[in-house]
């Protein structure tokens, strides 16, 4: 009896496997590529990961709608780097060794990108950053690319701007990692060279929620303004606590400020805050994308969404430009990126021109007004915050 059941089962299985239709010949020829997305899906800056995942999904849908993926089968694998170097290295190793991806889009956090860079170079996997501005990312090796400008530029723009606004004494409070320290070192160098003086210099760990010790020391130094490259949540809390301590001078921030968490954490206290961020582009590509993003997710595309959307589309453009005869692997994707010219994206035009950092990108001056992020308007400027 038992034997008979087995025979029937085996026969049925055999029939099933024969019955499966084989794939049509044309589809088998289509190339396929797996793209890794490395971004903080959890942790202090989990909101960046959320924006980037949404942007990637939208980019994939848009590329399909445009017919760019007819001959290319794209698979996306998300890995969480928690914006921490240790988790980033694990995430990257998994993408490179297990999923064997030729290109990873990420991470927005400079500190992760710098930690992962040596492995990317060693394994010949392209790392296309979706938000790392740290100066050193530009020199991190042949396989590390980025489309945003460098913090060297960001810090010197801020140094000039601070002096232009008449702030002669500045206190710095920064997040203790590659991004925060890099910005502050460059800022201090430029600012003091041009005649400003740094009156207090404090740092904090990335997950700090209580900034009162730093602020108390800052208050004693009575600065004209505080330069605070902190992560968004920390910045919001810090500014709030500054007001509670009766410290009402202007706060100057950096690129990460342009996320909703600043207002969420800081409330009314962040009104009037000034900061620098990656170049704003409002051409038709951006308008098209912004409308779609808003329709799908109910909010304006944040900075990390814009840059991740572009980074992902650039990655796919590079992969599609590889000739049929060549395999899609790290070295070939790298070649394709280096020769990429005039890519019109939602964050502007990208050209690598044989280098690892996109050329011609800069930073814009922004301010917070009534909970909204708007371009800096000298008339609306306040020296004393609410």
């Amino acid at each position: 009896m038992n034997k008979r059941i087995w025979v029937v089962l085996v026969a049925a299985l055999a029939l099933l496997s024969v019955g499966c239709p084989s794939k049509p010949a044309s589809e088998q020829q289509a190339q396929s590529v797996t793209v890794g997305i490395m971004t903080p899906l959890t942790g202090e800056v989990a909101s960046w990961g959320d924006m980037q995942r949404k942007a990637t999904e939208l980019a994939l849908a848009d590329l399909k709608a445009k017919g760019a993926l007819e001959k290319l089968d794209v698979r996306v694998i998300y890995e969480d780097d928690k914006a921490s170097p240790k988790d980033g290295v694990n995430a990257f190793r998994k993408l490179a060794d297990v999923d064997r991806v030729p290109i990873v889009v990420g991470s927005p956090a400079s500190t992760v990108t710098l930690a992962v860079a040596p492995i990317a170079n060693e394994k010949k996997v392209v790392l296309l950053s979706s938000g790392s501005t740290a100066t050193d990312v530009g020199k991190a090796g042949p396989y590390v690319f980025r489309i945003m400008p460098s913090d060297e530029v960001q810090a010197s723009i801020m140094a000039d701007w601070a002096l232009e606004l008449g702030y002669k004494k500045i206190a710095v409070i920064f997040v203790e990692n590659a991004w925060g320290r890099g910005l502050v070192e460059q800022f201090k160098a430029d600012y003091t060279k041009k005649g400003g003086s740094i009156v207090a210099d404090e740092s904090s760990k990335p997950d700090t929620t209580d900034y009162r010790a730093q602020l108390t020391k800052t208050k004693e130094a009575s600065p004209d303004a505080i330069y605070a490259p902190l992560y968004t949540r920390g910045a919001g809390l810090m500014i709030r606590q500054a007001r509670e301590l009766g410290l009402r001078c202007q706060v100057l921030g950096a690129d990460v400020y342009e996320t909703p968490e600043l207002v969420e954490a800081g409330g009314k206290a962040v009104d009037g805050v000034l900061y620098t961020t990656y170049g704003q582009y409002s051409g038709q590509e951006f308008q098209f994308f912004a409308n779609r993003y808003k329709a799908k997710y109910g909010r304006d595309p944040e900075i990390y969404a814009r840059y991740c959307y572009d980074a992902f589309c650039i990655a796919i453009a590079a992969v599609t430009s590889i000739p049929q005869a060549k395999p899609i692997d790290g070295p070939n994707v790298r070649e394709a990126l280096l020769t990429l010219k005039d890519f019109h994206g939602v964050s502007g035009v990208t050209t690598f021109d044989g280098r690892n950092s996109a050329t011609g990108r800069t930073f814009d001056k922004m301010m917070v007004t009534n909970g909204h992020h708007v371009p800096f308007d000298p008339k609306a400027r306040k020296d004393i915050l609410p």
Partner: protein
Amino acid sequence: MQFVVNGLVTGAAYALVALSFSVVFRVGRFFNFTHAAVFTWAGYFGYLCWTILGLSLWAGALLSVCLSAVLGVLLELSVYMPLHRRRASGVVLLLVSLGLYTIMQNTISMLFGDEIKRLSGNTVAEGLSVWGARATRIQLAIVIICVVVFVAFGILLRLSPFGTRLRAVADDPDLAAIQGVQVHRFRLAASALGSGLAAVVSLLMGLDVGITPTVGLNALMMGVVAVIAGGVDSTPGIFLGGILLGLAQHLGVWKIGTQWQDAIAFAVLILFLVLRPQGFFGKPLRKAAV
């Protein structure tokens, strides 16, 4: 002066966390990580009650504290009581609690997300002036509530039958059982009290700086340092331990960089472990206990 005020406020919060932990520790006799999870959950209960359900400050606070006490009791009933019955060792209990902590913390991340949740409103007011320094209403409330709770707890411990039993169970659960104390039922009461206390601090700290899924563990670590400095069985010791730790953290960074704050806390811990492992007022240890 501002440093002293900052230190006192932080110290008062540490002292309260330490007290709540010591209640749970005394009757359980193991390093209970889920206490940190209950602490975090309390903050999110507050978020639920105030922001989502829109309850008033007092109603929301009361409900959150009750919910946290219930959570503490449920954990004790479902996990620790069966383990205690089987005479599980302190290490086993510690590992179980660590596992549970991880699950509970990640549940919060899943439900509420990792970003900061603010419990206080959108408006920001300049703090009140105290001896030339600034402190917000919430910060003053932390200090006042801390003093009230410690006085009340001291009286409870010395003068009520509950206090006598707490000390008896802490001293030797078996002997207490022989004397007619219902140890298991008693553990439930103690975890309700400890969890409720933790909820009070959690809500206050949440109103002050906001909550994230990891607030509990950070708070617990500092609470434990305060407990060790003060001596686990001494209520005034724990109070002093917390205040001393807060002051050391804030005054210590007056002249050196603020990034050393946590290092200062753990330096205090090491100093006490080496020089006075029994705490300020504790009697010299007769045996080491985990």
